[in-house]
């Protein structure tokens, strides 16, 4: 097929879905290599993951799409679009939209690990989207590989036939061709009418400083051409198409038009990425389709935290950096926030904890900022005595308890897959984290799947890391929000020298308040350097102090010797003290280094 010859029957749109580390990106690289879309030497590790951070963490943060041509054994050339999906539970909605753009999905299962929590989550999502699922058993080159076990699990647990699933090693390049053959053979071609009114799904977008927003679309029906006036059906925004084309591994290839069934991009001098929401439907202004595509959701941040520069003078830099990140990440929200303790910063909203960590790390790494991030908070729903409902994502805004009729917190359904040896500890752990048991299934003799409903608040405090450490790294986790539930919540305040440190306040389940309070005051005691004055550190609920520690007054800070009139060292010391003050937060006569806040806010333990 020549590139401009359009034949919908020769198009294959698919995703690769997998549990983290099961080899998704490696297989993507091999497919591109094998079909000549890129030369082997061009494969810089995993090219679909563009960002440095993604490569390091081995996860895909934003969806990407790549088009390649494959000459199959039947003699025809197929136009394949591989739509990559974010591999983490925080990005569930993005995954579902990417899957909607496909007719099939390659489901990778690690031959040494079998089905894992995200394998299931992603597979179910693909099934829900009516995708043809093509199971592939990866890592067969490893000595501990057990392909039959993996196949059996796919059939038993997910319930799709897997007996003839290709057994491959993406890393070694074994059996890649078979995967390609199966893609063209088993995955159906798109359905769609190129002559119907335009109906295209936005599955990703990013900001380019020359072209404006580049919108990734899958054309369901109709045609999009340069010069068309298009309309986003949910946001209502209208634009004139400047450019359309397909997505190659390293470049975008301009085309006059894209037709039903195809995957590609368009640009239209769009300045605001918020105008091109993932899941929205693109149609023509003058000839709109009857209805938008189903499934559009406005993405709501689930986790909030305050981000402050460690050096207060870097506020402007932080603002600029957040603006830049938001250009490519509409799910990141932020607004200015002031803290008595930390000065000027931003209240940021994230899809989940991983999303938060990624943003935090990118700010520090790409923009060279030193940050203090306050404890993450979920959004609490409070019914007040006057009947109104208040959503609170910042402990500082938590109202007077007397005004709260009912407090509710967000609940998720968590799925944990663990080796059966650890079922006991995992159940205990979920219980400790206020989990409500829903279901347990033995997937096979060695592994069990547990379902718990638990407060999201419990998940965002280090749940995954602790789960991993309790199961020697074997357990996997997936979760989805299921709504709000009444809860017994209190706001815990931290006081230094009798003054409340707003940035350290947090909302906590009442029974948890005491151990958390103890931990925090102890951590502060250990991290605040001794001062001229004895410094009480207290934790309080309302006006009642529930935990107290004391930072003792310093006993020694003197440069006694001033030898031969050399006062320069003493002056330098004072200069250093002054310099250090920039990274200090002052509370009356008390100085607290930013580092002490960081240490406390890094909740790296169980309590």
């Amino acid at each position: 097929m020549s590139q401009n010859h359009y034949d919908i029957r020769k198009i294959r749109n698919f995703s690769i879905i997998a549990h983290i580390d099961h080899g998704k990106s490696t297989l993507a690289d091999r497919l591109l290599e094998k079909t000549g879309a890129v030369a082997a030497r061009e494969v810089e590790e995993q090219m679909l993951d563009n960002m440095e951070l993604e490569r390091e963490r081995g996860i895909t943060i934003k969806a990407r799409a790549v088009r390649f041509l494959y000459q199959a054994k039947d003699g025809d050339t197929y136009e394949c679009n591989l739509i990559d999906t974010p591999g983490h539970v925080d990005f569930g909605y993005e995954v579902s939209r990417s899957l909607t753009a496909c007719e099939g999905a390659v489901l990778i299962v690690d031959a040494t690990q079998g089905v894992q929590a995200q394998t299931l989550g992603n597979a179910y999502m693909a099934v829900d989207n009516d995708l043809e699922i093509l199971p592939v058993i990866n890592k067969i080159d490893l000595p501990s590989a057990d392909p039959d076990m993996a196949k059996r699990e796919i059939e038993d647990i997910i319930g799709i036939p897997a007996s003839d699933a290709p057994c491959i090693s993406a890393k070694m390049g074994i059996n890649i061709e078979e995967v390609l053959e199966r893609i063209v053979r088993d995955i159906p071609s798109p359905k769609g009418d190129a002559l119907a009114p335009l109906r295209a799904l936005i599955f990703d977008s990013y900001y380019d400083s020359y072209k404006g927003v580049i919108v990734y679309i899958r054309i369901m029906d109709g045609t999009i051409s340069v010069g068309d006036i298009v309309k986003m059906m949910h946001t209502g925004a209208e634009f004139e198409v400047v450019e359309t084309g397909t997505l190659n591994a390293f470049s975008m290839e301009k085309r006059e038009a894209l037709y039903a069934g195809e995957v590609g991009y368009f640009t239209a001098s769009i300045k605001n990425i918020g105008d091109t929401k993932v899941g929205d439907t693109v149609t023509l202004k003058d000839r709109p389709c009857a209805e938008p595509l189903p499934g559009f959701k406005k993405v709501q941040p689930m986790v909030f935290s305050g981000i402050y520069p460690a050096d207060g003078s870097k506020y402007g830099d932080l603002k600029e950096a957040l603006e830049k990140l938001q250009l490519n990440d509409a799910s990141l929200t932020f607004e200015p926030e002031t803290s008595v303790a930390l000065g000027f910063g931003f209240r940021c909203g994230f899809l989940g904890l991983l999303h938060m960590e990624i943003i935090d790390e990118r700010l520090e790494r790409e923009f060279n900022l030193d940050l203090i991030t306050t404890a993450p908070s979920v959004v609490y729903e409070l019914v007040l005595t006057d009947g109104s409902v208040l959503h609170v994502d910042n402990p500082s805004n938590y109202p007077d308890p007397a005004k709260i009729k009912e407090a509710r917190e967000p609940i998720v359904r968590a799925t944990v897959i663990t080796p059966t040896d650890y079922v006991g500890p995992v159940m205990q752990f979920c219980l400790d984290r206020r989990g409500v048991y829903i279901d347990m299934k033995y997937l096979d003799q060695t592994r069990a799947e547990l379902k718990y409903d638990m407060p999201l608040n419990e998940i965002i405090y280090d749940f995954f890391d602790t789960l991993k450490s309790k199961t020697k790294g074997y357990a996997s986790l997936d979760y989805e929000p299921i709504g709000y539930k009444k809860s017994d919540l209190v706001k815990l305040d931290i006081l230094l020298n009798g003054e409340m440190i707003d940035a350290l306040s947090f909302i906590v389940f009442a029974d948890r308040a005491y151990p958390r309070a103890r931990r925090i005051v102890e951590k502060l005691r250990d991290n605040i350097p001794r001062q001229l004055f004895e410094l009480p550190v207290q934790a309080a609920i309302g006006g009642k102090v529930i935990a107290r520690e004391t930072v003792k007054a310093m006993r020694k800070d003197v440069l006694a010797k001033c030898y031969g009139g050399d006062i320069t060292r003493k002056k330098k010391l004072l200069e250093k003290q002054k310099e250090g003050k920039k990274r200090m937060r002052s509370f009356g006569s008390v100085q607290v280094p930013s580092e002490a806040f960081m240490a406390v806010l890094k909740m790296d333990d169980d309590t």
Partner: protein
Amino acid sequence: MSDSVALYYHIPFCKRKCIYCAFYSVPWATEEVKDAYLFALLKQTASFPEPREITSVYFGGGTPNLFGPRRLDKLLSEISKRFHLTEDCEISMELNPGISCFEDLHAYHMAGVNRLSIGMQSSDDDTLTLLGRNHTFLDTVNCMNDARKEGYGNISLDLMFALPGMDCGKFEKTLSDALNLEPEHISAYSLQLEEGTPLLMAKHNYIFPDEDEEEREYQLLCSRTGGAGYRHYEISSFARNDHVSRHNMHYWQCRDYIGFGPAAHSYWNGKRFSNKADIKEYIKEPLISNDYDSAERLSEEEMIEEQIMLGLRTDEGVKASLLSKKKVSILMEKGYLFLNDNRVRITERGWRVSNSIIGFLLA
């Protein structure tokens, strides 16, 4: 403030360096080098442009008594030719008791030296060995007796505390031994771990007293010297019958002083500058090794900061009007400062944390 000037002469020779010492010194004190060094000092002295009244001359080290009476005499006569030394000019010299003898002490006295500062450090010989000192306590006793016999009426003993392996009991012994020698003056410094010293590098081999122990030793120092009639007139200095170190007071009072020799510091015409810490270069070109020309004159603000920083080291304190009333009252409430005669002073307890106090006041 009077116009008088102090002179500091650095004699950077040591037989070997003590393990805690970070000051500039060199070990190769051959006669030739010492002569060349004398020549260089004379040259820098002679070049001094503006003869003014001198109230203090101080020979510090290093080990000034390694320089020998002959050279010191030569140097002092050049100094008195060049400058006008006042009638009561304090002429001090640091002395290592391990290499002192009566004849030398006599010669120094004849040359004009009228104040000795003897590096006793401790009366515990094991501790002296551990510190790398090349003398015993008996050397100090002998040196002291010789000096008295010779007629020196102003002698200071240098002590150290917060030493590894030491506790209040041992330090009390040192204090008693020192007080029994009835010096006019005592300086006592807690051991500091300095960059680049063998002690810092090997610190894991020693057990150092903690902050609390160190504070107890300091309190002991203050109470024992106070009880024996010494006035605690500066963080580390104690004097009987007003025998304060005039030279050091010169520093604290922000008066002009000139440093001669490598690594010597000066404060002159509102500028602070120092000579390069390189004796070879100094010997070659004693006139250009300091950075006087490149030094910047202190601003009004800096001068006041220095006045506060240095003044608060002493029991003279500083004028209350230079400080923030609010900060002063916060620190007074905590027992770190007191106010007397419109001057603010740091308490004995406060001196132990004086960096933080001064930092707090200047911030």
